[in-house]
């Protein structure tokens, strides 16, 4: 069935390309590959794509590849804010993502000038793209995906290898965090560009009375957390701390039923009356109401670079208590509160006064308004697209001056050969 759908897909695209080629534009063509699709309703990459399209369609001819599995036929659109949408009959995540990304890349080669690839699933084909075409490749490697506990060993090995190919064979690679830039510099010698996420799509919303009726515990001050229920997000640590803080409410939203980990935690902690473990809320307005009226945002992520939910919480001016890992410290500029275990979190919740929380919330808001707006993020991507189009060589992390041996020696400035690199902390 998938094979026949793919054949139909290629036939339609072939006709579509011929139709498009008759209409010449002066704009450079950018294809965004690797996301579930638009309109955005899945995760960080999709929201990023949404905003890139809204901010960049006036400058570039944009095409976004979407997963036909996620959008029913009646939901599908031909264009979205000026970008053409192309649907593939495959899942954008999981094992199918390899074929999904590969076919998207192959298809984009027929018309795009720049391939903006989000994720490394299809990276195996990039050596051939570099060898046989002149297309420019910009790739975002997301967090250090191969390290994540949710993947099986074969999946980790594939992602490990794919990440290497992605960085080596792209013209520009993007990290979303300084710590990941340090990692790519040390492992690959690549000067990765840091572009984080925007957060200004998150808007504060006043709590409605109907929501208070639905969730009576929202009448009292509460801490808030929303995340995928995975061990790396340290939900067990947060729950353990709040199980001892019986006077402090915690509202935590996530997909509890999707894993043994989530089911076990729900069984263990649902008896605590101050802990409210809610299933996913897809109504954005409801979610914004619950989130923006929290007293404090607890962020337990320990992997994955800059996390969209963290920057959104910062943008809303929520005081942040984050897991003490380099990514979170970088995202919050070291100005939030940090915990390493449930004991730390317990003490922070118990002892931090409201004035201090309010102050931290203001600081978080300032940081987010300065660094995490979509106009800023989109402008960085625009600069990268222009850079990719203007050069075929990739930037090296080692300064060029270190390679000019004889000149340095002649001018007696050999000391310039030995420079401390930004990742040598």
């Amino acid at each position, binding site marked *: 069935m998938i094979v026949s759908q793919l054949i139909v897909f290629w036939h339609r695209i072939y006709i579509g390309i011929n139709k498009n080629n008759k209409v010449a534009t002066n704009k450079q063509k950018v294809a965004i590959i690797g996301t579930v699709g638009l309109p955005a309703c899945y995760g960080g990459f999709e929201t990023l794509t949404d905003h890139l399209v809204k901010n960049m369609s006036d400058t570039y001819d944009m095409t976004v590849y979407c997963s036909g599995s996620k959008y029913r036929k009646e939901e599908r659109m031909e264009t979205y804010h000026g970008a053409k949408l192309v649907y593939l009959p495959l899942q954008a995540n999981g094992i199918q993502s390899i074929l999904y990304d590969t076919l998207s890349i192959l298809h984009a080669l027929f018309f795009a000038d720049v391939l903006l690839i989000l994720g490394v699933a299809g990276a195996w084909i990039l050596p051939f793209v570099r060898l046989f075409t002149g297309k420019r490749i910009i790739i975002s490697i997301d967090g250090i995906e191969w*390290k994540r506990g949710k993947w099986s060993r074969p999946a980790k*090995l594939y992602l490990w*290898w794919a990440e290497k190919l992605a960085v080596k064979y792209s013209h520009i690679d993007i990290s979303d965090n300084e710590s990941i830039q*340090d990692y790519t510099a040390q*492992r690959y010698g690549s000067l990765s560009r840091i572009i984080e996420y925007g957060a200004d799509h998150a808007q504060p919303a006043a709590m409605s009375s109907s929501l208070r009726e639905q969730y009576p515990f929202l009448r009292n001050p509460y801490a808030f957390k929303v995340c995928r229920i995975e061990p790396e997000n340290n939900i067990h640590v947060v729950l353990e701390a709040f199980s001892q803080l019986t006077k402090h409410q915690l509202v935590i939203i996530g997909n509890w039923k999707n894993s043994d980990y989530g089911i076990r935690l729900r069984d263990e902690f649902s008896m605590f009356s101050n802990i409210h473990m809610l299933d996913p809320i897809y109504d954005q307005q409801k979610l914004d109401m619950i989130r923006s009226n929290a007293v404090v945002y607890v962020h337990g992520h320990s992997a994955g670079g800059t996390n969209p939910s963290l920057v959104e919480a910062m943008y809303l001016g929520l005081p942040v208590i984050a897991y003490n*890992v380099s990514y979170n410290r970088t995202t919050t500029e070291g100005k939030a509160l940090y915990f390493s275990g449930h004991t730390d979190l317990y003490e922070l919740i118990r002892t931090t006064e409201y004035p201090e929380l309010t102050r931290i919330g203001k600081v978080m808001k300032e940081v987010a308004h300065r660094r995490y707006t979509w106009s800023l993020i989109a402008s960085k991507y625009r600069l990268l697209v222009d850079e990719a189009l203007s050069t075929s060589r990739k930037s090296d992390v080692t300064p060029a001056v270190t390679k000019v041996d004889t000149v340095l020696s002649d001018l007696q400035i050999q000391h310039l050969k030995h420079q401390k690199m930004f990742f040598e902390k």
Partner: protein
Amino acid sequence: MEILFNVLFSASLMLAIVPVLIKGALKIGLTDMPGGRKLHKQPTPLVGGIAIGMTTLMSLMVQPSGFATFEVFYTLVACSLVLLILGALDDYMEIRASRKLLVQVMCAVVVVRSGLHLQSLFGIFGVENIPLPVMQVLSIVIITGVVNAYNLIDGVDGLSGMVSLLAMIVLGLISHLTGADGLTWFFTMMSGAIVAFLKFNLGQKNKIFLGDAGSLFLGFIIVCSSMALLNHSASRGDDSGNTVLVTLIGLMAIPVFDSLRVYIERYREGRSPFTAERNHIHHLLQGFELSPLRISLTIVTISMLLIATAFIFHHWIEVTWVILGMMLVFRVLIFVLNSNREMMTWQQKIQSFEE
């Protein structure tokens, strides 16, 4: 029934000999001390090979008449016993690698000069026959190389024993199927001895190691027996020569390809080929957090798959391509194992970035 008797006979001899040898080894210090690259935690007697050698000798005293049809086998066993003694001395007092190599080469020369050498190259890379002196030199190189390969693979509990056991079973089957029944007895007897050795090697009580004595002894028997059986099956005039060839290459692929890979890597990096390191295939498999037993079983399983695949495919494609195919499979396997090791190393490094 006779096979079962052979197995039980040699196994019983081993069960009787080993405890005595353990006592003697502990008294004189013929033990492998823990530390450095090693995984074991207590001094372990290096008597496995000596026990197998003594069992072989004692069994030969009661050998059936069919064994005499392969006169060269007496030379083969004698040279194996020389290597057994060499290995035991090395286990006891550390002999220089170059001297060990010299003795191995001399034993290979003796066996080759007595008539046991490759008779044909079976069309590998298009070559059938080469001048006799070249064939003899090539045979000496192969014997010495394979003996060392079996020596190097002795790195985790059970591995050398299981690989050798697989070899004896395969050689026993080949000898039976090609009408060399005089040797079938010999290989079943060896199998019984190795099974008994594995009982001690894999157990916690009365644990013993094979030692260099055992790996050199067994490696020499395996490679020379393989050559003898290969010549025997080629002389039958049917296709059994090619079949036996690919089976034997599949059997020895892992030890030989792994040792070649390691030698080439060391040479490329400017290091001595005799440098002791932890980058053999069994070390790379440790990156998957497997127990020594599972590592051994994994390697033996891969060997069996290689044998089976080579056996099936050689009916459709030439021997050269079968060999190249096995090398490619091995290369991909090593690539995956190296990637896993590198990934585990970086996983630890990243923890320091994240703190």
